[in-house]
Structures are given as C-alpha cells and as structure tokens.
C-alpha cells in the first residue's frame, strides 16, 4: 500500500516536501481544480514523487456540456503533464434548484442511478480516461444503498471507486451500512482515502467527515479487519487533512497506517536496490 497526502493549497507545500523527504508518504494527491491557474509544468515539477489527481468541483452531474468540455480540456493538460496514478471525482449534488449547498447533498442511490450512470459515461468520455468516484459519507438511511450502487456503477460504466474508508465508517455509524456490504467494492478498488471525523454538535449525534482529527479507533479497526482486501499491488491510500494540520500529528497517523499495511511494494523494491 502506497501512502499519500492530499495537497489542496500552497500553505502545506513545505510540509508535503518534508513528508516526501522523510519517506512518510510515497505520493501526493493534488486537489487539481484548485490549481487550474498554475502551469501544468510547474505542478509537474513541484514534488519529486508520483501524483494522484482528485477533482472537487467538476460538478459533472449538474454542469452543462460546454462547461464540462472546457473543464475536461484543462484537466487533460494536467493529466498529460503529470501522468497521474489516478484521476478521481465526486458523485454529489452541489445545488438544489440552482441554489448552492454549503454542505453537499448525497444522491438518491435508488432513484438517480440511471441519471448518474449516463453522466459518468459522458464525463469519462470527455476526460478521455477512467475516473474513480468517491463514496460519500451517508447520513440518512438511504445511504445503505450506496455499496450496491457503486458496484453496479463500476460494472456498467468501467469507472473505478475511490473508496473513502472513513466515509464508510461514518456511514456505518450514521445509517448502519455494514462494512461487509462494501467488501466487493473495496476488493475492486485500488485507490483509497482515509481521514479523521467528529460527531455533530447536537444529538442524536451523527458523524461528520471533517479531515481535522486523528484517525479514529474504529477507522483503524476497519482497515485492520479488511487489510487484505484493501492491500493489493498498485494500491494507494491518501491521508486527508484539511484543518488542524500539524506535522507531528500527520506523521503519527501515517505511521499507524504504515505499521498496518507495511512498506509499499514499490518502496521495498527501492530499498532492495539501494541495499
């Protein structure tokens, strides 16, 4: 399992360089559409490690085709320059009746499957490659339909799943989605996310994917229980931290993940050569 860190803005540039230099991470994940005004060549030279590209605001379920064509063309420039390990995106609603959510909306997995499938096919065709779509943190009970939705989506579109382990933990806590229901999705997925979460401020508590806390014990237990399903050649796991970003705290969590999964195959190869 290769470990990575999410790079969303320049504030953490020096920290990411240090994480790479000290071999705490094996790759870096750009939140790529934050950098659409930075030259692709500059991004390609930014870090001496493999790169993943994560998209936040394509809004491919809602945007009109000319907007998506333009977004895809710009994304393509970065794909060509950075040769990423993967490209990933979100299946989410950003608006309702053209009014923006500030806390994004989960799709209705049973009622919107065909709509999402067709949009996924169109979006992959425009970008010109397979895209890995992240599972969302479910809160309401309809979230239990997410695993079957993603399984079917992979089968019918050729898309991948960027499986967010801590989102699955929150969904389990919020609406009881069994971890076992995700087994086939995890087995098919090569790219993963993990992060901390916290409870809502009021009861009945729901768990929220905040990217601001240490990894929770139940997240680590989930990873350990399914370790052999997660870990496979070429697999990546991005540790996401978007707030309360302290180097020592990040490294502490990365060490837990490294201890759990061991050195990546690629890194073992590097060490064997240098020895």
């Amino acid at each position: 399992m290769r470990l990575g860190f999410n790079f969303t803005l320049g504030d953490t540039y020096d920290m990411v360089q240090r994480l790479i230099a000290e071999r705490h991470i094996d790759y870096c994940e750009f939140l790529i559409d934050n950098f659409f005004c930075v030259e692709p060549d500059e991004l390609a030279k930014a870090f001496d490690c493999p790169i993943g590209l994560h998209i936040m605001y394509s809004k491919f379920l809602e945007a009109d085709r000319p907007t998506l064509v333009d977004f895809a063309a710009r994304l393509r420039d970065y794909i060509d320059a950075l040769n990423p390990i993967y490209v990933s995106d979100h299946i989410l609603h950003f608006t309702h009746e053209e009014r923006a959510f500030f806390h994004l909306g989960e799709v209705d997995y049973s009622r919107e499957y065909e709509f999402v499938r067709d949009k996924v096919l169109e979006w992959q065709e425009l970008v010109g490659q397979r895209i890995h779509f992240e599972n969302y943190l479910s809160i309401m009970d309809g979230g239990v339909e997410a695993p079957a939705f993603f399984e079917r989506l992979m089968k019918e579109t050729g898309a991948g799943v960027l499986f967010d382990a801590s989102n699955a933990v929150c969904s389990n806590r919020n609406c009881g989605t069994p971890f076992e229901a995700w087994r086939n999705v995890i087995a098919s997925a090569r790219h993963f996310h993990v992060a901390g979460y916290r409870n809502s401020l009021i009861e009945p508590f729901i768990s929220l994917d905040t990217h601001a806390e240490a990894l929770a014990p139940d997240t680590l237990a989930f990873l350990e229980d399914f370790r052999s399903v997660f870990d496979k050649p070429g697999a990546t796991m991005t540790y996401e931290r978007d707030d309360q970003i302290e180097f020592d705290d990040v490294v502490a969590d990365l060490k837990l993940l490294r201890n759990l999964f061991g050195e990546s195959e690629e890194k073992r190869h590097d060490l064997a050569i240098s020895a």
Partner: protein
Amino acid sequence: MTLLSLPSRTDRDLYPALMSPQLCAKYPADHKAFVRIDVSLRVYWHTLFDICPELLELSGPDGMSIFRPFMAWAGEKKLAFDWSYYLWVYVWLRESPFKDRLLADGKYLRSIMGASAARWAVLDRGRNCGLVIGCADSTDFVVGWKCRSVRFGREIELIAPEEPLPAPPDIFGYFTLPTFELDIFPGWQSLAR
C-alpha cells in the same frame, strides 16, 4: 426519537430544508433529519460569521438576528448562494434595522467584499484569473486572485484608486480578469441572483 411525518429517507428528501431555518423548524429536534439539516445550516452560518466576524458586533454573539431573517429573505429571492453570498448579506443589511451602524463604519463593507472575492477565487472554475468587486458605498474596490503558484494560495487586494472608477449602477458590481493583470475596466456587471 420522535416519529417523523415528513419524508426523510434520503438526503434528497431534505434538500429544500438544508438551506432554510424555517423548514428546519418543522422537523423534531430529536430526529436525525433535524441534525442533518442543522449541520448544513451551521455551514452557512460559519461561512458568514467565521469569515466576517465583525458582523457579530451588529447582531450579538449568536448572529441569529442577521442569519435567520437573511436566510428567509434569500429563500424568497431564490439567491444562488454562489460567491456573491456575502454581498447579498450586505444588500439585506442595508435594508434592515442594522443599516445605520453598517454604514457608519467601512470595516463591514471591506470585510464583506474581501470575503466574496475570496469565495470566488476558491470556488470559480472558469478560465478567469481574477475578480474585481466595486460598491456604490465606496470608491475602493477589492480584487480576488486565484492560486497562481503551487507555493501560494489565493490573494485578496483592497485597492484605493487615485482616480476612482465609475460607481456601479447597483449597490455592487463586478468584472472578471482574464490574466493576472489588473489592466482593464470593461464596465461593471450586476450581480446575478
């Protein structure tokens, strides 16, 4: 937990309430749907008051005397809640009992214009590099720049021009910049709702 007569199986059932304190009040407080809606509404609250804490001086520490009526007004006008979110708060404040205190100190306007420029720089995915916001209540204007280097973030500039630009026809106006140079004035565009 109280039994709920409103649909709440999925997030989608709650979409209209996710941006409406009035609709939130229709859900029992001990139901997960209420908490889900509360989580959403808190993000609107924090997006406003964490970025423009000066506004709490007007409203009091919980912000609710601004937040609740503004959100109701925004719902009636079907505001898009795009980057101009903060500017519409200012438009509402100008029509509210807070008007005199708002206009007595330019810090509120500076904070609001800076917040909206920053939100554009964060959220816009078009090809433009910068956004200029002007206001009929000031000759200063604010520029928001997107991230232009991997080492830096977005930048916000407050500019007091030697020769003022013409005032926008509405309370606010804006124009976009196709490069990282502030070298054009194509005229003010009105805010879209």
